[in-house]
């Protein structure tokens, strides 16, 4: 054995868990690891066909499949998946914590990286497929889009980590989260832009940071869309506060979670 620095231990461990999670997630399925990409890919294609079938120009500023692509890709892959994977990290890592190098935090990091990677891979595959079908799927301002996506990604990871910590005290959190999946989607302006929502209802929706992320991504993606409500400062502030909460609750409780 060689002594390693704390950083290189963490790097080794996160990489090991990253690989292990990728291998094990679909290992019992016939198509195996192909499902890692195939599952979100199929889901996205299904959404785009169903919503896209309503015809072109339905949103005024962009073709329906591209609109769905720009909304569901970040929402499902960055928000939903990352959040759920982080929230269930505790149950999925029982065997991992038998090694003293591995902490729960490494599992969070590995899972978050996997979801981020899947987002990019699935997004590129779908965009190439759409180019072939004569759509224009690429964001106008690709760097800004990815920047907003990363904030949403960190928001999801923080929320998931916090849910995992609270879930270690009350398991009901898991139930609540799966119940809230649909309502959150309706409240986050995923399949409609805020510009079609009447002004008097904005106040009921704009507290939701995910909605701001969705609107900001849309603004950066389509050059002829300007969101009436999007506020980056609010999104950023909520993300920072949630991250701080998640990290400090982790620091306070991780030993108790490890103890049997």
């Amino acid at each position, binding site marked *: *054995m060689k002594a390693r620095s704390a950083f*290189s231990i963490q790097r*080794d461990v996160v990489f090991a868990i990253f*690989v292990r999670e990728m291998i094990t997630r679909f290992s019992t399925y016939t198509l195996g690891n192909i499902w890692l990409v195939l599952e979100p890919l199929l889901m996205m294609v299904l959404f785009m066909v169903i919503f896209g079938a309503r015809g072109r120009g339905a949103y005024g500023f962009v073709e329906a499949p591209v609109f769905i692509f720009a909304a569901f890709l970040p929402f499902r892959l960055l928000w939903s998946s990352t959040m759920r994977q982080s929230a269930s990290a505790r149950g999925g890592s029982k065997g991992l914590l038998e090694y*003293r190098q591995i902490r729960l935090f490494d599992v969070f990091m590995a899972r978050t990286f996997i979801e981020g990677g899947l987002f990019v891979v699935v997004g590129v595959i779908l965009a190439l497929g759409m180019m072939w079908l004569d759509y224009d799927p690429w964001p106008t301002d690709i760097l800004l889009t990815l920047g907003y996506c990363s904030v949403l990604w960190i928001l999801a990871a923080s929320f998931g980590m916090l849910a995992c910590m609270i879930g270690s005290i009350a398991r009901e959190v898991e139930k609540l989260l799966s119940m809230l999946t649909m309502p959150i989607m309706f409240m986050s302006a995923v399949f409609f832009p805020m510009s079609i929502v009447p002004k008097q209802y904005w106040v009921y929706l704009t507290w939701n940071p995910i909605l701001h992320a969705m609107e900001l991504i849309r603004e950066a993606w389509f050059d002829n869309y300007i969101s009436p409500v999007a506020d980056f400062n609010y999104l950023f502030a909520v993300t920072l506060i949630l991250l701080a909460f998640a990290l400090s609750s982790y620091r306070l409780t991780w030993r108790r979670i490890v103890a*049997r």
Partner: protein
Amino acid sequence: MIRFSNVSKYFPTRFGPKYVLKNLNLDIPDDRDIAILGTNGAGKSTLLRLVGGIDFPSEGKIISDRFISWPLALSSGLQSSLTGRENVRFICRVHGVKANRQTEEYVKEFSELGDSFELPVKSYSSGMKSKYSFAVSMGFDFDTYLMDEIMSVGDAGFKKKCENAISNKRASANIILVSHNMNLIRRQCNAAILLAYGRADFYESVDQAIFRYQSL
């Protein structure tokens, strides 16, 4: 040296905190092979987990500058859907061992699993599993090996092989062993910790500790 300074460990229950170890002060020397004795529920495995750094004392500190193995118990820390080889590779990665090929081949040979080494761990019988996990632990160079009842399964020939392997490691390492097999303890250990009445006592003589343990 593994030093316990004022270590207490309790588990919260609905009857209040249940102490397993209380105000324990203990030095485990580097050159001794230690047996941990105690009745069921006395805290043997908890003590091992504390030394292994995967559980933490409620109060006090454990200080050590040694490379300590994970507590080797039957199939602990193995992912059952991964193959034997993939599990070894994972453990190599976690421990920062770059020469994982070498370790994999060593484990394959030592565990006598043959082709089963390439099959998922969940397909192993309990005997195979014990051979496998023992072989995995021998594939890494630790200063201290923690073993929890791991040598009690397996056929006679393999047991002999295990004990030889441990004897070879002795030059550079020591072991801390939990077992109910007194003969094994007499052969492998030269000091003991007896857990009884909420205390832990260090014995220089294994025979004396076993005598105390059997008259509990």
